[in-house]
């Protein structure tokens, strides 16, 4: 295997891994936040090495948000931040008597 093949393999592996991460973050924002928080907490743990703890702190996710820029048309009307949960107005139906 030539040096070119090795470098090529590494680059492709990195690009595919980043693409998978971006897709995960964009399409499943809440799940990805939960997973990242769990990984971050396990790394940033008493008894771990300083390097691992630092990595854990860096991996601590900012609140991930799905937005209209992520998965649907090129809108811009949703605003920069999604509404807080309390702003969503769930519909509640009561059975008719």
């Amino acid at each position: 295997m030539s040096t070119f093949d090795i470098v090529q393999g590494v680059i492709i592996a990195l690009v595919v891994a980043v693409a998978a991460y971006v897709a995960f973050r964009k399409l499943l924002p809440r799940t990805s936040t939960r997973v990242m928080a769990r990984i971050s907490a396990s790394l940033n743990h008493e008894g771990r090495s300083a390097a691992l703890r630092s990595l854990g702190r860096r991996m601590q996710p900012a609140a991930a948000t799905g937005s209209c820029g992520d998965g649907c048309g090129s809108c811009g009307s949703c605003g920069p931040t999604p509404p807080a949960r309390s702003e969503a107005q769930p519909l509640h139906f009561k059975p008719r008597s």
Partner: protein
Amino acid sequence: MSATAMRIALVGNPNCGKTALFNQLTGGRQKVANYAGVTVERKEGRFMAPSGRTLHVLDLPGAYSFDATSPDEAITRDVCHGRYPGEAAPDLIVCVADATNLRLHLRFVLEVRRLGRPVVLALNMMDAARRRGMVIDVEGLSRRLGVPVVETIAIKRGGAQALIERIDAAVPEVIPTAVDSASIEQLHAEVRSILAETVKLPRDTAAIDDAIDRWALHPVFGLLILATLMFFIFQAVFSWAQPVMDGIQAGISALGAWVTGFLPGDSALHSLLNDGVFAGLGAVLVFLPQILILFLFILVLEESGYLPRAAFLLDKMMFRVGLTGRAFIPLLSSFACAIPGIMATRSIQDPRDRLTTILVAPLMTCSARLPVYTLLIAAFIPDRAVWGVFNLQGVVLFALYFAGIFSALGVAFVMKRLRKDKSEHALIMELPSYRLPNVRDIALGLWERAMIFLKRVGGIILALTVLLWFLSTFPGAPEGATQPAIDYSIAGRLGRLLEYVFAPIGFNWQICVALVPGLAAREVAVAALGTVYAMSGSDDAVASQLGPLISHQWSLATALSLLAWYVFAPQCMSTLAVIRRETNSWRNVAVAAGYLFGLAYLASLATYQIARALS
């Protein structure tokens, strides 16, 4: 109250210019338009006053009264009363009122005054009021109301200067009002008394509005004008964009050739860049001009004040099929994207009307469908004139948009028949004054649309394209293989598997593969088709031009079937997620996804079989 972090809430009737003022104060770029109900959630920003103080500004949804009848009005009520979760009551309420329509807006000002909090009244649109010949005694108005009154022109640079200076001065004192428990009648009487004393009004409405509305709201001519306008927009989308699209396509091909020229032609890296990135992203990127032309018209219509008139014209038809006239704005927003459209349903009071609107909103033709539609139309519909005037491709695009509209009306009608509650709700909607669109606002709006599209291309679309390239490449072809390598890959095998399900509607395995990442967002399917065909062994020149390639490989029946699929299929995960959030129900998500996929399959099946029988 903290002297350094004063909280200011902007409140007022819908469409009085709160968000435009918010943008002026904070430098924000929140969406503004000339109709009621643009803002349906609380937005926060901050700015530094000339004195150096940092002020937090809340932009709240418009409300006619604190007797909230819709979810967006309830947000305003709760924030002003200090009952909004996690939000302290504002230190200062800036009540924004449309100076040209004080008879309506002052009633809410009186309600706000009764809260007993410091209030400043911003008389907005003073330029329009002066043009109409209105004379407002600002001092007298301030005396009568017992609150400071400042003049503003929110859409003009520097138009909020007086307000900034007033906010930066001492917080106004609260003068107790004499009518703390006034009835609605008493409030109206007080408004009439204040207006009689402080406002000279030559006529109730603007002469120009009346003149335009005689035609624009005419039951026959009004509908004709609306249809002509829509038709012209779709013609323009095709006719005007082509030269720029050709330029982008040539640029992408040249860039691709240059970048990949440094790599060995048979290497995986060359394939990733050429077949994945350039063939995939290039196929989507060329549609930017068409999207911008469509949005140019949408933004101009939004700013002009014509849209509520269109709602009025279509109300009768919407009413017959079981939609409220209030659904018009959310459905219209869905032409840009279903997500803000579904969120805009918060302005609908009745939960059943709201649910109906939410469930049909994904049928409106969002801009993400445009790349798919135009790709297929350009490839299969001849570019020729109809009746010497119209472009056939534009006519087909127009028909597809109307197919979405009529489907939504049909689904709403079925839902109306199915539901037990037959009560009906009349449309009460404020018709704003017409105004000339602000060139800067339009330019900013277009810039933001372009950035959103480019971010999507560089974000989720690029990510999914790379993943699809990976799945289309590995595992590679075995020794002595005779078929293209993609046939042996994960994506190829998945496509062949899905082909069993989609063969009756005419989809080949390449389309089946493209539909899978296309579930994330509609235009991803175009990028995916570019990648799949490039991986299938098409040469570079053809791969960069997907249209000519598919026009050779697909039948017309397949293309029409795919168009029919995209009219209905909910190929957008974010839309389904928003339905879940807004209705707090997975059942509604299942209903939406189930009926939309069902309709998509049936429509494609009928289209394909009929087209095949006729050809």
